[in-house]
């Protein structure tokens, strides 16, 4: 096949860049990602004034403090930016990610080569919300490897980060990203995951702390039979801005995606944004996709934006759908629990636990399940006048 034919096939199947607001152009070149004005579709929800250094900052040697627990089958090394780019994967889709790649002092390369018998845990701790920090991580999962990988963020930071996952054919990866920041932290995250043929990804994202967290997660498929479950939990308190953007790019036939994000909000100016974009390309015949976002508003003064988008370019789809709910407590849930003697406050606590437990229980790492449940418990303890919240 000549290069010309290749190009023609590629353009007929639209495997290149698709002109769509759902799909900014992936590029390592900063010139392709101008400083946003706030009117751009992908930036219109983000409070740019509070986010500034992450869009126009400069290089910095600052790093998060890293400690790791790596079972056999995982190695960690440091490589250069150029070496990281050569490994492949989805290029940055916004300016914060492009800057992270450009300015990170080095790249942490996590290689998973076997079937792990315990989760690989990497703890990343920030020590200052004033110091501009850039991080670039590449995770390579060998074909048929099987692993659970936890990136566990905490402390105070002003962080722009790009995390690139390259998941080999037939591999099974549970990737867990936990943002348990102090409340002064600012974090722009881009998680880009390329899934190999017949590989299975479960991506979990838990965003509990931080002043502003803006996380963009991008998926593409390197071959048919690849499957992605994307699960998220977030809990925004007064003044917090927690934004989760998903872009699932069905680039191969017979692939599957399932998205379920759940959030709670409480307090004045707590703001969450969830944007779930799914693009089904011409080539992506016979795919299945479903995405769901549910928000529980626990007090007045909070705002949840929830936008599912589905763009379909083929007529041959096995299943596609999405849903979004934002609301207060369901009176029926509370009535049922209270009719069994459970007081209103405890009933509300049970309902919120249940709401999140639906996601948390899927992790399969017992100590992490417990930690997250405790964290939710602590968030609920902060909810002032839980009793006073009414859906009537």
């Amino acid at each position, binding site marked *: 096949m000549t290069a010309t034919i290749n190009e023609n096939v590629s353009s007929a199947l639209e495997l290149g860049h698709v002109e769509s607001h759902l799909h900014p152009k992936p590029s390592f070149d900063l010139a392709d990602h101008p400083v946003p004005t706030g009117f751009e579709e992908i930036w219109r929800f983000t409070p740019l004034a509070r986010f500034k250094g992450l869009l126009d900052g400069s290089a910095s040697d600052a790093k998060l403090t890293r400690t790791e627990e790596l079972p056999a089958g995982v190695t960690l090394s440091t490589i250069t930016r150029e070496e990281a780019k050569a490994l492949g994967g989805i290029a940055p889709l916004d300016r914060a990610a492009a800057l992270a790649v450009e300015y990170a002092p080095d790249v942490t390369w996590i290689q998973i080569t076997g079937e792990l018998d315990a989760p690989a845990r990497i703890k990343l701790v920030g020590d200052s919300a004033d110091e501009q920090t850039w991080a670039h991580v590449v995770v390579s999962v060998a074909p048929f490897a099987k692993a659970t990988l936890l990136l566990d963020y905490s402390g105070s930071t002003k962080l722009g980060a790009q995390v690139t996952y390259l998941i080999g054919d037939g591999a099974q990866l549970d990737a867990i990203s936990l943002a348990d920041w102090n409340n002064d932290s600012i974090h722009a995250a881009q998680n880009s995951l390329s899934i190999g043929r017949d590989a299975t990804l479960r991506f979990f994202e838990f965003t509990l702390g931080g002043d502003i967290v803006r996380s963009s997660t991008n998926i593409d498929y390197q071959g048919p039979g690849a499957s992605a479950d994307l699960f998220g939990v977030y809990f925004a308190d007064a003044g917090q801005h927690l934004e989760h953007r998903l872009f699932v790019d069905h680039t191969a036939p017979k692939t599957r995606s399932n998205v379920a994000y759940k959030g709670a909000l409480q307090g004045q100016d707590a703001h969450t944004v969830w944007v779930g974009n799914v693009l089904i390309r011409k080539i992506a015949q016979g795919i299945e996709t479903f995405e769901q976002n549910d928000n529980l508003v626990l007090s007045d003064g909070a705002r949840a934006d929830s936008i599912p988008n589905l763009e379909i370019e083929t007529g041959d789809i096995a299943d596609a759908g999405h849903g979004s709910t934002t609301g207060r407590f369901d009176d029926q849930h509370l009535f*049922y629990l209270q*009719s*069994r*003697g*459970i007081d209103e406050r*405890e009933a509300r606590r049970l309902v919120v*636990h249940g709401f999140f*437990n*639906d996601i948390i229980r899927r992790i399969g790492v017992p100590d992490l399940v417990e930690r997250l449940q405790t964290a939710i418990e602590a968030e609920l303890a902060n909810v002032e006048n839980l009793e006073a919240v009414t859906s009537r």
Partner: protein
Amino acid sequence: MSTLEIKNLHVEVETEEGAKEILRGVNLTIKSGEVHAIMGPNGSGKSTLAYAIAGHPKYTVTDGEVLLDGENILELSVDERARAGLFLAMQYPVEVPGVSVANFLRTAKTAIDGEAPKLRTWTKEVNEALGRMTLDSSFAHRSVNEGFSGGEKKRHEIAQLEILNPKFAVLDETDSGLDIDALRVVSEGVNRYSAQGDRGVLLITHYTRILQYIKPDYVHVFVAGRLVETGTRELADQLEAEGYDKFINAAV
């Protein structure tokens, strides 16, 4: 010995056309040890009576009292009524995602008893109560009513009745939608509960079928928001043979 007295109960619901009176002066006294059946046509307000006693926020009491051993429970919150000894088995039990049956039952039992159940015997007690309702122990780990079949939801209600063991149980069309085997299992549960001798049952039903298994001491006919006739079991047989027409016509 306890008494549940419903006195001149008037209840409204908010509709698009404004407030609508559903209960128009209900009077009924139930003593512990007694089983009362309330039978009536669709739309007569039977379920409203059940929900109003339990305190569902959708229903507004405009007049009357419900006294449990002399205390007007209409002044209590929903959970306080339950802790005072009232239980409502719902016609449509609610699904509560993510809350396990085990956690739910333990929390409820703790609230009702005022102390946590004994760890040593509790799991066994729950499993046995579920087992008597032909629900296997895996149900304890499932979310409350989520994905349960209609019959499983009803059996779960009666398992709760046995575990929480209230003074008075209001069963709102617990028999509807049950096949004959499930009906028998559910009836046996209710009979075990009332056989303790010091518990009262208000059984609300549309059909006489369940009365083959649960023998009421009193049968009441409920039409257009009131009790229009009270009798014994023979009244149920009469309703079975003749239907509600006679009472509906009289009430209009």
